[in-house]
C-alpha cells in the first residue's frame, strides 16, 4: 500500500468532485417521464375549524390533475403520522398522543398546517389553482407560548386535552435532591428561556414519488436522513404498502441537522397521490414554506437551582422545564426534552443528587423535534449558566469551580444519578488544554486593551458531555423508544478486490464516503480509491436506521468493522486451504494472509480471486464469493465531551456583540479523519453561535403568525459573524465501539451556546447582569446596558 489512507489520515474527501462541479444529485434535480408538480395549500391561521373546502373551480383550471384534502386521505383509510417514541408521566401513565393526519381534516393547529394538495402539469398551474381554493375557516383563539398554554382557560389545541399537557415527565431522585438542598450553604438559581430555532439545512425538503402500476410498486425519492425508517413508518403504519413494494431513495441531501430525520406529511401525501393520479408527482418546499413546515428545535422555559456546600462543591440540582411540543407530536418529539435532556444534567460533574421535571405542552405552533444536539444543548446551556452564576455569587474562579466538581479520569466508568453510565472521559484534561490554548490567564490584559478601545470584553467557558451513538436498543426501549436503533453494513469484495460498502447510515455532508472508506482501507490495507460507499437507497442497502444523534461512525462504523472482520475471517479459511496450513497459523497483515513465522503468504487479491474463480478453493466446505454483512446494536451510548472558551467584545454604544475568539477542545474518541472532524466542529459551533447571537423563531403571541419565516427575518450566521476557531482534541477511547470512536457531529452545537452567553454575561457583569437570554442581539444588549445604567443613576 502506498500513501496511508487509513485511520488518522486527513485525506481529501472522495465525495467532493460531484459537488464542486455541479453534478450533485439532489431530489429537486430529479425529473421523471410525465411528472406532475404538487403544491400544498397551507393554513394561514394558527388555530381554526375547517368548515368547508371549495375546490371545484380550482380543479377545473388549466393543467390541474387533481386536488386532494384530508377527507380524501381519511376516505382511503390513510393512517396518521406515528410518533416513534412515547414517554410516561411521573405517575407511570402514558403521555397524551392525539392523532395527526397528514393533511388537516376538521381543524388546523398551526400556521402552515397542510389543508390541500394540488397536482398539475406545471408548478405555476398548481400554484395558481392552490390560490383559487376557497377554505371556510372559523378562526379560534391561538396559544403560542408554553406559559400561556398551561394557564387555566387558555385555548385548547386539542379539545380532548383541555390543559394542553402532553406529559409530566421526571427523572432523578426528588427526595435525595430535597435533602441535598436542606444541607446547602449556598443555592444558585436561574430562570431562562431556550429560544425556538429553525434548523434550515440549505437544501429545502422535497419529494418525488412514482407508482408503477405494472409492478404495483412505489418509489419515493426524498430529502431524508433515514430512508429505511421512512419506508417502515410510512409503508407499515400510514399507507399500508408492503415493504417489498416500496423503495425509498435519499440521494444527495443538502444538509440535515435533524430536520430531515422525521417522517413528514408531505412524503406521505406525495407518495399516496402518485398512485391516485397514476403519474410521478414532485413536490419541492419553498424556504418560507419550510419555516412553516420543517420541525423546529429547542423552545424551553426553565427554572433551576444548584445547591452547593461552603467550598463550592455541588450537592444537588433541581430543574423544572416546560417544553413546547407544537401543534402535534413529531416523530421523536417527546424524547428530545426528556431523555436527551434530563439524562445529561449531571454534565461532567459529580453532583450526587439530581431531580428534573419536564412538562411537554401543545401549542398552536409548528411541531418541535430534534435539531442538532437535540436536548443536550438545552441541558448544557442550563447547567453551565447555573455553574457560572454559582461561581460569581461565591466568588470562585469559573475554571476552578468546574475543576473541583469534575469527574476524575480515574472514576470512569461513572454512574450518574440520572440513569446514564459514562464509559470514558477525561474532562479535566480537556479543560486544562482549553485554558492553555485560549490563554485564560492572559484575559485581564486583553480586557484592558478592549477597554482602551471603548469595548466591553468578556470570556466564557463551558464544559460538557453528551450522549450520542444512538442507540443501545435495550436502554432506549426502556425509555420509550418503540423500535431498536441498531445499524448494519455489507462489505462486498468484487472479483478484482475492489470493495463496495452498503451501509444504512446516510451521508449528507458528514464525509462518510471518505471516513468509512478509511476504515476499510485500514482493515484490508487497500487504498480508499478502491472503495465505494453506497447508502440512501432501500433497494440497495439491506437495512439501517440512518444518520442522527452522532451515530453513524459509532454504530454504523462498528457494524462496518464487524462485516470487514467476517471478510478477513473467510479469507483466513481460504488462505489456509491455499497454503495448506492450519487456520490458526494464518495471520492477516499488511494486506496479505501469511503463515505465521514463514514467508509463505497469499495476497488479499489472490484470496479474493480464489473465492470467485474457485481454483484451489475448498468448495466442499466454504461458500463461494466474498460478501459479508453485519448488524450491530450498541451496548451503551457514547459520551463525547469537552471544554469550549469564547471571548466577545461588546460595543456599549450600539449593543453589538463581536465573537472575537473561540477555542474548542473535544474528546470525540479516536479521530479517523482530523480534517473532517475539524469541519464538523466548525459547523456545529457556528450553529450554536447562531442560537446565542443571531437566530430566533418568533411567533406573534396573539395571532400565532410566525414573524420570522424567511432569511430576511430569521438571522442565519454569515461568514463575518464567525471568527477563525481553534479546534483541538483530547481523546479518550470509547470502551465499546470499534477503534474507540465516539462521534463528533453535535459536540460543537452542544458546547457553544453556553460558552458564548457566558462570555456575554461576563462582559456585562460589572452592571450586575447575571443572565442574558438568547439570542444576544444588539437591541437586547443595548437595552440591558442602558436600563442598568439608568437604574444605577437613579440609585445614586
Amino acid at each position: 500500500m502506498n500513501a496511508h489512507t487509513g485511520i488518522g489520515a486527513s485525506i481529501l474527501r472522495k465525495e467532493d468532485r460531484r459537488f464542486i462541479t455541479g453534478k450533485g444529485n439532489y431530489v429537486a434535480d430529479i425529473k421523471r417521464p410525465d411528472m406532475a408538480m404538487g403544491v400544498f395549500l397551507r393554513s394561514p391561521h394558527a388555530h381554526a375549524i375547517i368548515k368547508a373546502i371549495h375546490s371545484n373551480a380550482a380543479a377545473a383550471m388549466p393543467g390541474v390533475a387533481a386536488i386532494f384534502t384530508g377527507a380524501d386521505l381519511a376516505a382511503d383509510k390513510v393512517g396518521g403520522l406515528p410518533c416513534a417514541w412515547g414517554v410516561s408521566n411521573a405517575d407511570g401513565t402514558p403521555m397524551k398522543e392525539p392523532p395527526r393526519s397528514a393533511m388537516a381534516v376538521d381543524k388546523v393547529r398551526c400556521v402552515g398546517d397542510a389543508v390541500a394538495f394540488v397536482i398539475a402539469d406545471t408548478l405555476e398551474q398548481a400554484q395558481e389553482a392552490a390560490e383559487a381554493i376557497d377554505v371556510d375557516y372559523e378562526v379560534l383563539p391561538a396559544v403560542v407560548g408554553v406559559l400561556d398554554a398551561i394557564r387555566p382557560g387558555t385555548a385548547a389545541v386539542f379539545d380532548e386535552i383541555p390543559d394542553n399537557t402532553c406529559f409530566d415527565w421526571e427523572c432523578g431522585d426528588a427526595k435525595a435532591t430535597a435533602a441535598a438542598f436542606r444541607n446547602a450553604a449556598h443555592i444558585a438559581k436561574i430562570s431562562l428561556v431556550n429560544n425556538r430555532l429553525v434548523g434550515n439545512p440549505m437544501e429545502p425538503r422535497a419529494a418525488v414519488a412514482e407508482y408503477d402500476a405494472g409492478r404495483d410498486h412505489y418509489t419515493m425519492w426524498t430529502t431524508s436522513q433515514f430512508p429505511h425508517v421512512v419506508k417502515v413508518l410510512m409503508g407499515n403504519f400510514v399507507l399500508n404498502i408492503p415493504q417489498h413494494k416500496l423503495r425509498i431513495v435519499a440521494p444527495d441531501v443538502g444538509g440535515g441537522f435533524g430536520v430531515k430525520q422525521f417522517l413528514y406529511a408531505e412524503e406521505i401525501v406525495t407518495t399516496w397521490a402518485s398512485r391516485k393520479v397514476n403519474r410521478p408527482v414532485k413536490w419541492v418546499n419553498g424556504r418560507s414554506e419550510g419555516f412553516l413546515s420543517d420541525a423546529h428545535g429547542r423552545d424551553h422555559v426553565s427554572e433551576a437551582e444548584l445547591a452547593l456546600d461552603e467550598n463550592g462543591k455541588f450537592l444537588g440540582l433541581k430543574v423544572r422545564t416546560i417544553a413546547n411540543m407544537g401543534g402535534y407530536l413529531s416523530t421523536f418529539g417527546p424524547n428530545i426534552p426528556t431523555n436527551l435532556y434530563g439524562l445529561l444534567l449531571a454534565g461532567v460533574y459529580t453532583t450526587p443528587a439530581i431531580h428534573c421535571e419536564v412538562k411537554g405542552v401543545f401549542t398552536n405552533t409548528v411541531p418541535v423535534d430534534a435539531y442538532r444536539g437535540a436536548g443536550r444543548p438545552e441541558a448544557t446551556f442550563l447547567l453551565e449558566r447555573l455553574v457560572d452564576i454559582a461561581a460569581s455569587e461565591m466568588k470562585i474562579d469559573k475554571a476552578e469551580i468546574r475543576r473541583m466538581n469534575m469527574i476524575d479520569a480515574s472514576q470512569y466508568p461513572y454512574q450518574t444519578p440520572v440513569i446514564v453510565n459514562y464509559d470514558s472521559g477525561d474532562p479535566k484534561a480537556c479543560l486544562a488544554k482549553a485554558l492553555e490554548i485560549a490563554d485564560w490567564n492572559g484575559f485581564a490584559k486583553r480586557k484592558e486593551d478592549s477597554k482602551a478601545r471603548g469595548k466591553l470584553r468578556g470570556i466564557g467557558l463551558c464544559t460538557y458531555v453528551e450522549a450520542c451513538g444512538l442507540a443501545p436498543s435495550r436502554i432506549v426501549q426502556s425509555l420509550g423508544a418503540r423500535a431498536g436503533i441498531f445499524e448494519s453494513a455489507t462489505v462486498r469484495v468484487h472479483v478484482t478486490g475492489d470493495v463496495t460498502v452498503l451501509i444504512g447510515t446516510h451521508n449528507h455532508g458528514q464525509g462518510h464516503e471518505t471516513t468509512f472508506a478509511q476504515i476499510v482501507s485500514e482493515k484490508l490495507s487497500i487504498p480508499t480509491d478502491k472503495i465505494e460507499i453506497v447508502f440512501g437507497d432501500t433497494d440497495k442497502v439491506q437495512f439501517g436506521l440512518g444518520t442522527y444523534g452522532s451515530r453513524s461512525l459509532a454504530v454504523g462504523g462498528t457494524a462496518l468493522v464487524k462485516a470487514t472482520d467476517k471478510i478477513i475471517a473467510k479469507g483466513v479459511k481460504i488462505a489456509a486451504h491455499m497454503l495448506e496450513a492450519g487456520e490458526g497459523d494464518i495471520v492477516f497483515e499488511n494486506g496479505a494472509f501469511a503463515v505465521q513465522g514463514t514467508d509463505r503468504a497469499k495476497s488479499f487479491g489472490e484470496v479474493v480471486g480464489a473465492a470467485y474463480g474457485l481454483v484451489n478453493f475448498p468448495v466442499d466446505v466454504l461458500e463461494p464469493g466474498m460478501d459479508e454483512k453485519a448488524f450491530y446494536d450498541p451496548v451503551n451510548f457514547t459520551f463525547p465531551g469537552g471544554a469550549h472558551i469564547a471571548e466577545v467584545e461588546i460595543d456599549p454604544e450600539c449593543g453589538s456583540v463581536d465573537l472575537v475568539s473561540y477555542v474548542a477542545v473535544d474528546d470525540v474518541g479516536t479521530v479517523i479523519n482530523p480534517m473532517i472532524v475539524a469541519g464538523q466542529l466548525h459547523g456545529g459551533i457556528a450553529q450554536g453561535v447562531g442560537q446565542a447571537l443571531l437566530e430566533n423563531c418568533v411567533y406573534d403571541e396573539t395571532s400565532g403568525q410566525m414573524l420570522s419565516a424567511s432569511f430576511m427575518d430569521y438571522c442565519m450566521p454569515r461568514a463575518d459573524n464567525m471568527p477563525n476557531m481553534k479546534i483541538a482534541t483530547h481523546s479518550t477511547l470509547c470502551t465499546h465501539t470499534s477503534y474507540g470512536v465516539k462521534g463528533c457531529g453535535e459536540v460543537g452545537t452542544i458546547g457553544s451556546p453556553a460558552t458564548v452567553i457566558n462570555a456575554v454575561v461576563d462582559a456585562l457583569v460589572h452592571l450586575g447582569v447575571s443572565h442574558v437570554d438568547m439570542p444576544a442581539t444588539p437591541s437586547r444588549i443595548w437595552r440591558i446596558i442602558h436600563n442598568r445604567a439608568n437604574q444605577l443613576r437613579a440609585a445614586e
Partner: protein
Amino acid sequence: MNVEISVNGKKIKADVAPSLLLSDFLRETLDLTGTHIGCDTSQCGACVVHVDGVSMKSCTLLTVSADGRSITTIEGLAKTAGADLHPMQEAFHLNHGLQCGFCTPGMIMSAVDFATQTPNPTEGDVRRWLEGNICRCTGYQNIVASVLAGAAAMQSRAGVSS
C-alpha cells in the same frame, strides 16, 4: 419571448415566458441543476452564476434580461480556466471548503468573481464579500480558507500566463 443566450459557451435560442427566472431557465429548461435554489428571498446565494463574467443571483434575474448575454454556471466554470477543474473548485476540495455541497456552486461562482476583482484579499475581505452566500455546514472557516487559496492560485496562474 425569444431570447438568445450563451450558456457555458453554447448559443441557446429559446422562447420563454416573460416571468421565467433565469434560475428556473437554467435548472428546468436546460437541466443545468448545479445552480441551486435555497431560498425565496434572494438571501442564500446558492443560485449565483456569472453574467458576462460578473457574479449574480440567478433567482433575481428574468431570463429575458439575459438576452444577448453570456452566462457561466458551475458546470461550465472549469472550461473557462481551460482545465479539468477551475483553481477555485480545486481550492474548495483541497481545503475541505464544502460539506453537504448544496451552497457550494454558488459559493464557488461568487468566490471566482471576488478573486478576479480583489487581487490580494485579506480574510476580512473574504468574510465581508460572502455576506450574500449562506452555508449551514462549515461555519465558513474552511470556505474562507478555500477562497483565499483559490484567489492565490488564480493570481499565480494569471501571472504565469501574462
